[in-house]
């Protein structure tokens, strides 16, 4: 019903931009986690999660995002969200994710924010 997990990445300066497409459930959550972990293992410290192509997020998907945020904080990295739909912003607020990670309307704004905080 939901198809395969769809994830794309690109590097912008020192930031890894991760485009999360489709239904963010356990399968896609694991995939996002893997991509971010590899970025940090390779020495990267900045991640932008782009939710513009995310249709739905369930609680398991959110738990993976929380885990990712924890790891980023542990490693003193930086992280931001962008293009988050209204319902997903609401979910991030309910789960207090929004307290730890800033969301931006556009990818450009988010990248500028991360660049400033290097």
């Amino acid at each position, binding site marked *: 019903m939901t198809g395969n997990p769809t994830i794309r990445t690109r590097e912008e300066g020192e930031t890894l931009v991760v485009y999360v497409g489709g239904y963010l459930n356990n399968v896609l959550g694991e995939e996002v986690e893997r991509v971010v972990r590899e970025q940090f293992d390779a020495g990267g410290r900045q991640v932008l999660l782009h939710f513009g192509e995310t249709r739905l997020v369930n609680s398991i998907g959110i738990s993976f995002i929380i885990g990712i945020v924890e790891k980023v904080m542990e490693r003193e990295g930086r992280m931001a969200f962008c293009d988050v739909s209204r319902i997903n912003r609401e979910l991030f607020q309910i789960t207090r994710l929004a*307290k730890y990670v800033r969301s931006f309307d556009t990818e450009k704004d988010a990248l500028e924010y991360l660049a400033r905080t290097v």
Partner: protein
Amino acid sequence: MAGVRLFGTMGAEASFREEDFFGREEELSALTRAAADGGRGIGSSFMIYGPPNIGKTSLLLKLAHDLRSSPETGGIPRPFPFYFSFSQILSHPLALSQHFIQEFLWQLLRFLGDGQPSPFDPEGMCDQLSVHGFTGCREILAAHAKYTAAGDGLSALVNALSFPFAAGGELFYPVFLFDDFQYTGKLQGVTDGAMLSILRPYIKSGHYPMFLSGSSPGRVTASLKREGLFGTFQMLEIGGLSQESSLRLWQYLCERRRLEIPASLLPRASKRLGGIPVYQRMLVEEIFFRNARVTDVVGLENLYALSVTEGKLNRYWREFFENTFPERARRGRAIRFLKRVLCDRFPLDTVEGALSLMGASQEEGEAVLSAFEFKGLMKSDLEQLAFIGDPVLADFLFWAFERGVLGKGGSQVAASIVQARLSHVEPESGQDAGHARRVAVVKELMRKWDLREVPLLLLDFGKFREKFGGKGLLEVVIGMEGEQVRVRLPKISSVSTGYRTHRGGPRFDFDLVAYGFLEGDFSEENLVIWAVDVVPEKNLAARAVEHFENRCRLLALEKRLPADRLRKWMLLDETADPAAVDLAAQYGVHLSHPTQVRLFLNLFGLEELEREPEAPRPSFTGAPRGEKPLEYELVLPMKADSEMVAARVAEEVAAFASVDSDTVDRIKMAIIEACINAFEHSASESGKVRLRYLLSPEKIELYVQDDGKGFGAGKTPEESKKNRGWGLKLIRELVDDVEIVTGPDGTVVRMVKFLDAGQPGPARKGEGAPDAPGADG
């Protein structure tokens, strides 16, 4: 005398009658211009292609005739059209080269005004040619004789093909009209493309316009590309005649045979035959020899169907298939395959798909496809297959299939062809646009069911009513392993309009008849037919069910179908008499409500079909309080991503109430979370979760019920470690009221979203834009 020539191009030339040629003005103009430009060294070359017998040869011969008739130009060389057909008769290069020289000499002498040269005396023709100032001819013949004696086919061929370029000069320049060029790839002991290698320098010079024609452009263009000639050639596809040209041909043919066909029928007749001239001639001959009169559409269709099933059009295509596939079994396989593609419009564009549909070994399947391509019935471009859409061929294949596989008589098949066409063109009275639209929706839906598993209960209104005491409208069950009521829908290979045996006979006038195959196995044993009626009346009466069942029985009898191979489906408009529901259950007729169909469409991503133009949905705005709510039920298997089905149905239900998109999103998220909770925590033995959606003017109520052991409201220690356990918290935030009841039979989560801010109930949460990042505490 031309009559003594046993083989070669004379057959085609002799049968060509210039006065029979109509239309193609644009093509002729382009080719004539290119031929004329050859005199100035800027001539173009063309690859002319199209399906078999579309009129490619006639076009070349008409061009040859026109060029030969072109006026003298006073000292400027004239184009000499040399027509040559590479037929399969001359597959040996020695024979071909010999014949090529003879043919060239013969046509050239005729062009130069030498009456009737002796075609089998090349030396004599050489002598005649010398009178016109051409020398060196005998030397070329001697060289050819030497290669022939040595059995050197390739050298003999090079010698022969170079011959025309040694001639010419002040009087003329040759324009090559090479027909059936694909056969040059089948010469014995000569590699594919050798012919173009030999001709390459002459083509490149621009002095010798070359028009290659054939049914298999793929092979020839591949050779052209290998030789670096593809850019030199312009591609010219030949199709049916324009309607205007086709009408002129009808008038000419009818006058010649003194037939009277009402002028009003001729456009239809042209369309019926795809504007293909050879079919027009054959149908006129059919009518003439049967001494028949055509006075109306039915008469025309009858004569056409007779011709396809037992007359000239039948013989025409039968011989074609007998020649192309001499082996009976392979012929049968090829016909059945092509029937499914052209008649049933099986969507097919890959070699893998074709082999699968054919059910043959890879070797045999590829051989059949190769033969289709060679004969011009199929085009292969970048591994994408395309089949020709010849209407007469499609009807012939229908005849061959019905007769060969189902054992039906010619008259039965003819009646089917006539009726199908008449039904298709003239929709029955009383079937308004709404009905037609609904039929189209169901048709598309059936196509989308391709290889999907949908259980019987999905369609069965009667069983549902019985099971739920008439309260609800729908139950959807998706893919439960071992489910008793579960059936696998066949692979739908064709959806067509209704079916009748013959005019005035038993009416099998279903709205749709879908042919499919169980388990994706395209065998007769697994053939299943769906008969579908969309009931136009507001209320379904028992009488209509009875009538439908009678037609189904006739259809089953006609098709010799066992009981389980005919699926019967009626789509209601609004309501059904209890007696009709009972009768449908008795006969095994599935009944469905449009609401069900709309939900299916949504599930299959087809909702736009229904939405334009959209049928009015029930509006709850201003509806009296306390009105009986609409109720939907859904049973889902507890397996990955099933919750998405629940969300999509919730979206559809919410759409009925015209709520804003934020509310829809919250409802979807809430039901997703409730489902996930049930999947993860209930430990249900049945592996099912039952959902109910109740829609009233005031609120949407969602129930998620499992038969498991229940789940706690807080996080388990393990969940806390893994950042899990957010489900219930999210639900509580997303909807206005949540109630969780756990009992011995399982757990029910009831979620309520109020639709009107003024309604009693808990205060609404989360309306409007969320807080700014970081503001949530």
